C-alpha cells in the first residue's frame, strides 16, 4: 500500500468512537524544566570526554583505602604497595560494575514507564536522564574492559513485581535515588583524594556532576510519590516499604565486597574474606557514612521511623 493512498490512510484512522485528543500540551514542572536547561548546558560527547591512557594505577591506587572492602582485614595488611594498587584496580572495576548494573535496571524501568500518565510531564527530562545514564554505563564499561578484564557479572535477578503499581513504582524510583545518593558519597570520596589515579578521578567527577541533577529530580519525584501513596496507604505500609529500602541499601553496598575481585587480586579464601570484610568496622562505618543522608530523607518522608533512622 503506497503512503499516498487515501483509502489506506483512512483505514488507519482511529475509529470514530475515539475521543479527540484535545488535552493541552504537557508543560514540564518548573523544577524539571530547570534541570532540563542544566542538562542541555552540560551536554557532552561520551566518546571524547575521557582520554583513555594505556594503563591505569601504575603508580597510584584506583580507590582510597577507605573504599577498599577488605581494608580492615589481615589480608589487606599483608599486601605490599603493588598488591594494594592491583587490588584497588579490581575493586574500582567492581564499583563501576555494580553501579553499571544498577543504572542498567534504572534505564530499563524508566524506558518502560517514561510516557505513562504519572511521568508524562517529566518525559522530556527523563529522555535526557536515560541518555546520561547510558553515557555513564559506557564510561564504566570502557574502564572495566580496558583495564580490568571486563565488567563483573550481574548476579541480580528480576523477580516478578508484586503489589499494587503505585507501590512498585515508588520502590523503583526510590531504589534509583538511593543508589545515586550512596554512590555520590563514594564518588566524592575518590575525587577528594588527590593521590588517586587521575583517569579514575575524572570518571568519578563526571558522574558526580550529572548525578547532582538526577538526585534533585529523584528527591522531588519520590516526595510526590510518597505523598500520593500516603493518601491511601497507612503509616504501617509506608514503614514496611521503608524497611525494604533500607535492606536494599545494605545489599547494594555489600555488592562492593566481591569474591571475584579478591581472586583477581590473587587473594586466598575469597568467600570467607568477603564475610570477614562485611563484618569489619571499616566496612560498617563506610556503609553508615554512605547512607546517612538517604536515611534522613526517608525518615522525613515517613518511610523510616525515627527510631530506625540511626
Amino acid at each position: 500500500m503506497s503512503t499516498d493512498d487515501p483509502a489506506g490512510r483512512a483505514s488507519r484512522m482511529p475509529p470514530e468512537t475515539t475521543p479527540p485528543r484535545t488535552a493541552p500540551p504537557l508543560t514540564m514542572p518548573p523544577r524539571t524544566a530547570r534541570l532540563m536547561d542544566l542538562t542541555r548546558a552540560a551536554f557532552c560527547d561520551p566518546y571524547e570526554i575521557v582520554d583513555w591512557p594505556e594503563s591505569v594505577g601504575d603508580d597510584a591506587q584506583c580507590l582510597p583505602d577507605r573504599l577498599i572492602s577488605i581494608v580492615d582485614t589481615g589480608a589487606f595488611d599483608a599486601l605490599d604497595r603493588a598488591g594494594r594498587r592491583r587490588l584497588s584496580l579490581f575493586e574500582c572495576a567492581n564499583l563501576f560494575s555494580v553501579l553499571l548494573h544498577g543504572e542498567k535496571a534504572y534505564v530499563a524501568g524508566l524506558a518502560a514507564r517514561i510516557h505513562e500518565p504519572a511521568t508524562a510531564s517529566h518525559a522530556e527530562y527523563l529522555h535526557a536522564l536515560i541518555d546520561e545514564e547510558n553515557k555513564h554505563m559506557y564510561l564504566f564499561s570502557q574502564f572495566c574492559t580496558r583495564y580490568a578484564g571486563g565488567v563483573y557479572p550481574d548476579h541480580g535477578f528480576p523477580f516478578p513485581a508484586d503489589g499494587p503499581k503505585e507501590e512498585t513504582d515508588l520502590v523503583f524510583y526510590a531504589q534509583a535515588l538511593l543508589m545515586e545518593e550512596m554512590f555520590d558519597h563514594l564518588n566524592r570520596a575518590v575525587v577528594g583524594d588527590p593521590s588517586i589515579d587521575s583517569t579514575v578521578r575524572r570518571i568519578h567527577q563526571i558522574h558526580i556532576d550529572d548525578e547532582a541533577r538526577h538526585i534533585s529530580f529523584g528527591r522531588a519525584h519520590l516526595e510526590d510519590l510518597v505523598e500520593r501513596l500516603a493518601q491511601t496507604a497507612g503509616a504501617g505500609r509506608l514503614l514496611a516499604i521503608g524497611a525494604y529500602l533500607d535492606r536494599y541499601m545494605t545489599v547494594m553496598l555489600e555488592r562492593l565486597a566481591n569474591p571475584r575481585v579478591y581472586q583477581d587480586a590473587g587473594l586466598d579464601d575469597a568467600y570467607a574474606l568477603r564475610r570477614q570484610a562485611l563484618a569489619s568496622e571499616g566496612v560498617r562505618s563506610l556503609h553508615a557514612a554512605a547512607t546517612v543522608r538517604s536515611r534522613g530523607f526517608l525518615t522525613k518522608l515517613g518511610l523510616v521511623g525515627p527510631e530506625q533512622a540511626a
Partner: protein
Amino acid sequence: MTDRSPETETEADAKTAIEGWLLAHTSHPIERIAHDQDIVTGRILDSLRFVDLILLIEELSGRPVDRAGLDMNGLGLDDFRTIDAIWNRFFKTP
C-alpha cells in the same frame, strides 16, 4: 523427573547447608525447608537476598554460577525454585 538414587553425602551436605543458610536469612518464622519446597513463590527467598544465595552456591560448588562469566543469561527462576532444583542445576552436572 524424579531422581530416585539415594543421596550421596556430598549432596546431603550441600542441601543441608543451603537450607541452613535460607533459614538464617529468611524473614519467615520457620524451622525447616523441605528440599522440594518452592522458596521463590512463598518468598522464603526475596530478590534482595538472591545475590547472596548465588555466592553461597558458588562457594559450596566451587565454581561460578555464571558459567561463561556472563550475567545470569540462560538461567531462570526455576533453577532456584527449590533446594533440589539448585542441586540439580549447579552441583550435579559435571
